[in-house]
């Protein structure tokens, strides 16, 4: 009996091993002949050996079904600002780019790219480099630079290491202005490769479709799941995935979403009852009821809740991508970008999403509570900002804000605690609205008052 069991187990292990090896072999002998040009076939066949993972992704994609090949996205004219100088493959007269910008995706998905460019996501990369404070934080403070004047505790920094924090951190979500070397490759060590949503490319286009539809499957199902957003929207400053998991929506998704829900309905038709609770994409992008699908994630937002003060989104469409395309300039964009019809219209659209499952009364009541919490936060921030401005006028702030007790607490009040308080409220996450939110905000304001009063009284910055 024991012998038989051992034999059966051995067979099982051998089978599973053979299965996995078999897949790799299958890729290596891939031959395609399906309305692809001879050169395009050559790409697929050669890369099936060189980079089997990429070809495997492609072959299970909708692109492969539609006959969209490597060439359609990667081939560029030799004089393109993105072209790799060497011919690829050798002596073919063909040039490729390792980068694929939204301009390329927009050849077939023009509407989606346009909507994306009008959203706050398009600002993600460029705005970071247009802000002096952010540039200083990345390259100077986190890059461990030399001290500013005498009040910063830094030792002399290594110039070669200054890109490390941004390249491995900020840029991975935000993106950067990608520069190429003389051969046409992105410069190593400066933050490429990345999945940053706001990359600015040498061809003048801004954004990154692969942030959510990872290459090379570009899967719609993947982008509809909360995990697509969660790789960036997490952590102490915008814990959106944690907020979602804390909400009743997240609870239902986590209980049954993977097993029971239908994930691959066509765009605009993905609606209840394909799912029993919304994911991030449902509320912010999907075509629900009378609403149409949009790739403008700012369109249904009433407030700007990531800024120090919550303001209504009255800025219309985002313009950072347009400015970069026309003038090559990195700008801060339009932080109050939202719905061109105004913040109440934006809220109206969001309510339409809610109402496909909830009653009008429940929807209205939810947003009344949420808005009250947002406005309550503003009362805290107004006081904190007034104290900050007052200390600044009286020269009672350190130049290095990261070694100044007052400025550090002020930063946490809006960037961490304040965002959790507000985002927790509008997305129905009680733990974030309260314990990680308003509870800590009220602790912060007390600390700020103490430091403020001491500095005003003594006329000095404490040691």
């Amino acid at each position, binding site marked *: 009996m024991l012998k038989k069991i051992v034999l059966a187990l051995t067979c099982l292990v051998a089978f599973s091993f053979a299965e996995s090896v078999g897949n790799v072999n299958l890729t290596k002998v891939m031959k395609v002949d399906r*309305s692809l040009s001879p050169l395009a076939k050559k790409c697929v066949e050669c890369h099936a050996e060189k980079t089997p993972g990429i070809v495997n992704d492609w072959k299970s994609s909708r692109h492969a079904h*539609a*006959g*969209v090949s490597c060439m*359609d996205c990667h081939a560029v*004219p*030799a*004089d*393109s*600002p993105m072209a790799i100088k060497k011919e690829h493959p050798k002596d073919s007269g063909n040039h490729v780019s390792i980068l694929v910008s939204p301009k390329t995706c*927009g*050849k*077939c998905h*023009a*509407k989606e790219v*346009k909507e994306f460019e009008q959203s706050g996501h398009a600002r993600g990369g460029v705005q970071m480099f247009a802000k002096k404070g952010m540039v200083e934080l990345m390259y100077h403070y986190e890059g461990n630079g030399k001290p500013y004047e005498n009040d910063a505790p830094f030792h002399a920094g290594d110039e070669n290491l200054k890109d490390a924090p941004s390249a491995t951190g900020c840029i991975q979500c935000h993106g950067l202005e990608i520069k190429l070397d003389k051969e046409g490759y992105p410069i190593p060590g400066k933050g490429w490769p990345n999945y940053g949503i706001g990359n600015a490319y*040498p061809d*003048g286009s801004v954004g990154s479709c692969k942030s959510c539809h990872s290459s090379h499957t570009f899967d719609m199902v993947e982008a509809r799941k909360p995990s697509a957003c969660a790789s960036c929207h997490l952590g102490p400053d915008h814990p959106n995935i944690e907020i979602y998991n804390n909400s009743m929506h997240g609870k239902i998704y986590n209980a049954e979403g993977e097993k029971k829900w239908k994930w691959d309905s066509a765009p605009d038709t993905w609606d209840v009852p394909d799912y029993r609770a919304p994911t991030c994409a449902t509320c912010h992008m999907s075509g629900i009821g009378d609403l149409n699908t949009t790739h403008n994630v700012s369109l249904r937002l009433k407030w700007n809740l990531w800024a120090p003060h919550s303001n209504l989104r009255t800025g219309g469409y985002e313009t950072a991508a347009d400015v970069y395309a*026309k003038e*090559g300039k990195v700008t801060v964009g339009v932080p109050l970008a939202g719905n061109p019809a105004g913040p109440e219209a934006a809220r109206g659209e969001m309510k339409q999403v809610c109402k496909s499952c909830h009653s009008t009364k429940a929807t209205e009541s939810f947003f009344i509570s949420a808005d009250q919490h947002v406005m309550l936060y503003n009362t805290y921030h107004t006081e904190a900002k007034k104290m900050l401005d007052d200390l600044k006028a009286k020269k009672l702030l350190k130049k290095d804000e990261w070694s100044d007790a007052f400025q550090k607490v002020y930063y946490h009040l809006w960037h961490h605690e304040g965002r959790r308080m507000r985002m927790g409220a509008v997305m129905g996450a009680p733990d974030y609205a309260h314990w990680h939110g308003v509870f800590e905000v009220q602790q912060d304001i007390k600390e700020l008052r103490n430091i403020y009063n001491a500095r005003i009284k003594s006329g000095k910055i404490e040691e």
Partner: protein
Amino acid sequence: MRKTKLFTFIILVIGGIVGLVFALGIAQFFYVTGGEKFCTMCHVMEPMGNAYKDDVHGGNNKVGFKAECVSCHLPHDNIAHYVYQKSVNGIVEGTLTLFGNPEKYDWQARRKEAKRYVYDDGCLHCHTDLKKISSDNMKSFLPHRDYFAKNINKTCVECHEHVGHKNLGFHLKAKFGDLNITK
């Protein structure tokens, strides 16, 4: 009375012949001044001409068929618009070439404004079946579906931004140097 009628008839015939000769003359003039030979007489157009000759649209294809400069760079919606735009271009470009300084233009930057110089009805004048047959060819149908359904308001050259002049960037650089390259 009969004499007057005959006279009117003769006048009409002669007028018709003279008119026809003039019309044909103008048509011939338009024809002669619509191609690469005439357009590249101005030296500033040399890079555009050379890049065009390397391109599929400039005859570098299996059958040697080529589109003339005006096939893309003049409107083809109706003859009045065509003649009007031809005259405007003739006057403006002639004046600028004679009295202006087109050698100093930032030609690289101007490539970004291609939609101002290329007319969709020109493209569709030749690619006339694109709309009809494209559903047979998924690869051609999918990218053009939103265009023909008017879901987007992009022009042909906004997607096909290098069409007509192969590697124009290199030709411009060879003639005008790096000074004109902004990005």
